[in-house]
């Protein structure tokens, strides 16, 4: 035999397949979400720049909007990648190609989540690059390590959530419902477009139960050094949520729930 068996190569191949999958349709998976974010920025900044003050006027509204949109794109695309890859494979039946080889639940988890993170981060970077033009006064990022940590953890969390949603959903419309009724409202109500300090007290409290708030707020702290919640606290909450969802996803994969009948 000429071939060489390499341990770890199995899940790396699955990761490679996940990357190749979205890369082959990158117009739809990368360019389209970048354009969407750009449209949000242009429209909201044009309409609201003169009317909304954030962080007591220490940050321009347009500048405030950029990290929110970057993080929103990271989160939504990480979720979209793992969930749509899984549901497509389930519905077309080609998930069998992944289920027949000797891949462990942890390996399948790792490949799908990392693939989702890469897609989310690429789109986030794309949004950041095209919106830089709107930030002529951004000379330095206040806490880059915080920004990177939130981007990594946030994309991982949504990648895991997408994996769980993809395992759970039997049909495309179930997945769309998950996306439209859970992911989209939680992102839009997380403070992407406003600082929660401008909300009435009741809604400020409610916002603190939204995990997306901590991801957006913490990521923004990385940019400006200003935030609505203490950044270390936000990081701890996001990390805890990611760990919890990871345990759930690994449990489902180990049981073969909805995958190995």
């Amino acid at each position, binding site marked *: 035999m000429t071939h060489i*068996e390499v*341990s770890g190569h199995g899940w790396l191949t699955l990761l*490679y397949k996940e990357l190749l999958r979205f890369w082959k349709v990158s117009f739809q998976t990368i360019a389209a979400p970048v354009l969407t974010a750009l449209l949000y920025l242009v429209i909201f900044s044009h309409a609201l720049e003169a009317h909304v003050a954030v962080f007591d006027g220490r940050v321009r509204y347009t500048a405030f909007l950029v990290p929110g949109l970057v993080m929103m794109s990271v989160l939504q695309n990480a979720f979209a990648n793992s969930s749509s890859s899984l549901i497509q494979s389930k519905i077309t039946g080609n998930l069998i190609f992944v289920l027949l080889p*000797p891949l462990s639940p942890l390996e399948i988890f790792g490949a799908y989540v990392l693939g989702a993170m890469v897609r989310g981060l690429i789109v986030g970077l794309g949004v950041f690059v095209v919106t830089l033009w709107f930030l002529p006064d951004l000379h330095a990022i206040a806490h880059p390590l915080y920004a990177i940590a939130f981007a990594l953890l946030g994309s991982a969390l949504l990648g895991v959530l997408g994996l769980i949603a993809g395992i759970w959903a039997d049909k495309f419309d179930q997945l769309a419902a998950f996306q439209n009724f859970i992911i989209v409202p939680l992102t839009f109500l997380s403070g992407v477009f406003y600082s929660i300090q401008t909300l009435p007290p009741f809604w400020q409290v409610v916002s603190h139960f939204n995990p997306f708030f901590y991801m957006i707020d913490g990521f923004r702290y990385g940019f400006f050094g200003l935030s609505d919640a203490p950044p270390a606290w936000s990081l701890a909450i996001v990390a805890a949520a990611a760990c919890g969802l990871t345990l759930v996803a690994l449990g489902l994969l180990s049981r073969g729930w909805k995958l190995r009948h």
Partner: protein
Amino acid sequence: MPAAVEVVDIARHFGSVQALSGVDLEVAEGEFFGLLGPNGAGKTTLISILAGLTRSDRGFARILGHDVVTDYRAARRALGVVPQELVFDPFFSVRETLSIQSGYFGLRNNDAWIDEILHHLDLTGKADANMRSLSGGMKRRVLVGQALVHKPPVIVLDEPTAGVDVELRQSLWAFIRKLNRDGHTIILTTHYLEEAEALCTRIAMLKAGRVVALDTTQNLLSRFQGLTVRIAVSRLPPSWQARVLREDSGMFYLGLDTYGELETLLAALRAENIAIRELALAETDLEQVFLRIMAGEDTPAIPPPSLEVPEA
């Protein structure tokens, strides 16, 4: 030496349907083994349990001594499965599909073997074509290729020639036979009984989740000395109703013990003024055996799984 496949007391239900109720089987290394049965007999469920796609309610299964649940990595490495459904990933070309599948098994630098698979399956010219552009028969060939990328010692083919044209069927079987000669154990389910008769050295017949026959192909064929008559009539005389093996839109399949009985049948039809639209006689082949066993005519005690394989 462990058996290629060992199935012990495997049972599985789906809701109120008992798909498998206590199946025992043993397939020796190097065998060309047939798994036959009507739709819903449990063939695909059994294969899915071997492949780790489905879990059993009780019992266990091993591939070359590796339990398919507790030692799934070794078991899956030893097993190649050609699924019944014509599935493919529309994002990739034929070569990408095979090389990705090979990677899932942890294999690198497998191009020489992939080229050989492409050649034997007559896919070399389509190597860089997208999976979407292939005909059904070609997609089926790629599925066979995917099952072989890791050179599994045990190969399971679930209805591999369904919807495949005759020419390809011949070349596919030539390739599978070669693999069998090279030492691979083959397990085949098929609807084409003449295929099973020509290829398999031993056969298990499943019916409603149970093994109802398990023997060498030769022994199964010699179990029935009679012949089968296929006859198209509007109805049958009452005395012949019990002899019907199968009825298919006005076509009756009747089991006869001797040629002499044919005379009796014709006389009975003439006496009742029943016109014969069509009539054909068939010597015992696997299809007749299959029909008789499925009709419950033959209910001997099921012989215990045997590892004695006749010289092929």
